[in-house]
């Protein structure tokens, strides 16, 4: 059993968390932090807290490990997307393409680990990080300008 308490919920979620669940949460947090190239204890704790928050809010059957993993993954995704949204002041951080592109940008900007400390920190001012991310943002395609390219005919046109 973990002694972590989610104070904001007004009750101790930890009282119900099994060792397996603790491991699952930590593994999920570790996987997501690794996917952002972050190795930082504070950031890790913030993500673990976010996951516990999500679990506490959700009425998902805790024994279904596969679904639980999906739930945790979704929770981690949403927590990070929410933070990125705050950092970049953009709303479109949740869609898979935008989220992945921001992940690319963060990985590039954080190559030497200078932004790891700020990861998932909602309280900080992130203007410098926002600039760093905007510099690193990739744009795979320009704006879509759809039109039709009609097939030509080899037949004699009807008069």
């Amino acid at each position, binding site marked *: 059993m973990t002694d972590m308490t989610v104070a904001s919920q007004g009750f101790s979620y930890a009282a119900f968390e099994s060792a397996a669940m603790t491991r699952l949460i930590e593994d999920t947090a570790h996987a997501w932090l690794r996917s952002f190239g972050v190795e930082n204890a504070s950031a890790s704790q913030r993500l673990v807290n976010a996951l516990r928050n999500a679990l506490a809010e959700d009425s998902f059957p805790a024994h279904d490990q596969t679904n639980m993993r999906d739930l945790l993954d979704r929770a981690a995704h949403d927590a990070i997307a929410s933070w990125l949204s705050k950092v970049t002041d953009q709303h479109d951080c949740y869609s898979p393409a935008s989220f*992945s592109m921001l992940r690319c940008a963060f990985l590039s900007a954080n190559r030497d680990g200078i932004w790891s400390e700020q990861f998932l920190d909602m309280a900080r001012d992130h203007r410098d990080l926002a600039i760093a991310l905007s510099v690193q943002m990739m744009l795979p395609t320009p704006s879509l*300008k759809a039109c039709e390219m009609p097939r030509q005919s080899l037949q004699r046109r009807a008069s």
Partner: protein
Amino acid sequence: MSQCPDDMSNSSSPVGPDTAFSVGTNAVVDESQCDPTVKLRGPGVGSRRVFLFGASIAATAYAAWLMIDVLGADQLTIMEMVVVAFFTINFAWISLSFFTGMVGLVLRGLKRDAITLKPLKPIVRKGSLRSKNVIVIPVYNEDPNRVFAGLRASYESLVATGELDAFDFFVLSDTRDPDIWIAEEMAWAKACNDLDARGRIFFRRRAENTERKSGNLKEFCETYAANYDHMIVFDADSVMSGEAMVNMAYLMENNPDAGIIQSPPQPTGRQTLFARILQFISRVHGPTMSAGLSFWCMGSSNYWGHNAIIRTKAFIECCGLPVLSGKPPLGGHILSHDFVEAAFMRKAGWRCWLIPQLEGSWEELPPNLIDFAIRDRRWCQGNMQHGRLMVAHGFKPLSRLHFFMGVMSFVSSPLWLLLLLSSTIATLQNTQLTYSFFPGQFTMFPQWPVDRSFEMLVLLIFTIGMLVLPKIISILMVCLGRDRKKYGGVMVLASGVLETLYSALQAPIMMMLHSQFVFSVLTGNQVGWDAQERDDAGVPLKAAFKTHRTIIVIGLIWGAVAVFVDTAFFWWLSPILAGLILSPWLTHYSSSLAVGKAARRWKLFVTPEEYDSPDELRALARINADSGGADVKDGLMRLIEDPYANALHSALLPTRKPDARTAIEIGIIYEKLARLGVESLTRDEKLLILSWPVKPLDQIMAGRDAHPSANPVVSS
């Protein structure tokens, strides 16, 4: 300057060029704003064609008359008539090429522009570009290191012109190899980072590669092309100088009725003997042929599929390719799209120009004869389809001629073979006949045999002269010119002699291979469309023997028959027979990198690009060396282990969700991956999971943990 009389039929065309045209994607510019110094117009288009075709027909008629005179001295047999027919068709083909070359030589000698006929002068641009252009690079399973090296070399050159803002780059991937797919994404990101070119270099991969290259471009046209006024189409091995690209865009801006402007790409970059010989002769003689072609084609020139600039709006409106009725190889989707696109452009009233003096445009050749033949097999299939388009409704006569020339570039081989075979049969027949001094019943005077050896010699010299004279003069012009040093100095003569010898030996091999290809296509066989070999790959002697075994057997049997028929005839055929019998050695030794490099040391087959490499090619070599042939293996493993590669791949995937069936399939593949490792997955399985965001290693292993009985193997 007189107006080009070429009928454009603008008023009748629904999508043809107008006097006002769009530049900068929004603005509409009047034609009067165009720079008159770069106007693509020239005098006497009709006269040029009358001269060229008239001379070709006259020369063919003369050669045919000589042939009839030689063979028909003692009355023509049926087989001799067949010989005359095949000879005439082949000679017409040679003749057109000869006069094109001769015109090109005159233009080069007088330093005249092939279009305006004015003295050649460089393009002097007045002001910056107003248009927005895109360089598109359609790729299919190509080496990403080479593709992006070419892109980066061209990009760097463009930066130096100061016109970078007028250009974007777009890699259009149709790649089906999972490892190459991932390597392309990484190479794209690296190019964007290294060149600080985010928002200038774009990348997209098609999920389905329907209609191959033309479908790839069509999909681009229907999605992003409308952002641009013009697109410069690259091949996977293309490199262009910034100056060339800017000049092409400038020409487009100032010639609002131009639909396509083709630059003549110079082959470069290969070092095998085979490739160096071709590079040399293309560099020496190619400009001659380009000038000649441009002279008589004028605004009805052809499009060669790459290193050309295209007016996007015109292309979208009138170059959507039809699907031919019937099954492949002659029906179905059009394979060789370039000629057809040019024909549709012309049909809609747009002009297509070949500008011979546009330098700074390069491509690469196959490194050896086998790969060259493999490429020809694909082209043969595409060009044979054009036979059906020759008679299709609505195309301009010159477009039909281009189709015909494309078909003839392969069909001329079986025609030549038939000519040689019918000559053998005719000679055999003649040796069986006893000469009759009194062929009539009541003749008082005998009919003496007529000696036609002089006429035969004249005909032989005439034919060989038509074949090689323009090339020999091109070589002499280089030898006597100021740039001789760039071609190896006086060794250019030795290079020319050796090239002529080599091409004489290679010609019968290509005749047999092309004949086989034509027969194969006509009997319904089709080939795939794989990436071209772009390394200096050699051909082992054993492989060469295996490839050419049929040709050797044919050569030996043919030689034996010729000796049996007539020894003189055997010697007459000997250059052909030598090519056939020596084909494996020719293929093997010409594919040798060591021999190619040795020839370079002896200053043989030197090109200006080798003598003093342009900045772009130096940059290409540097970037290639820097990439060190970066690994394109284990793409999936890279995504699993490298968070950046993983994120990038996910970001480049189209936003969609798998249906229930696909989701189950993906789950099964991940299960297999976790239990048995990456090596256990097939190419299709890798492609399927790569088509959706890929899980990192720990997630995959976590999935495996959910099934404790599983054997934990994810090999790295």
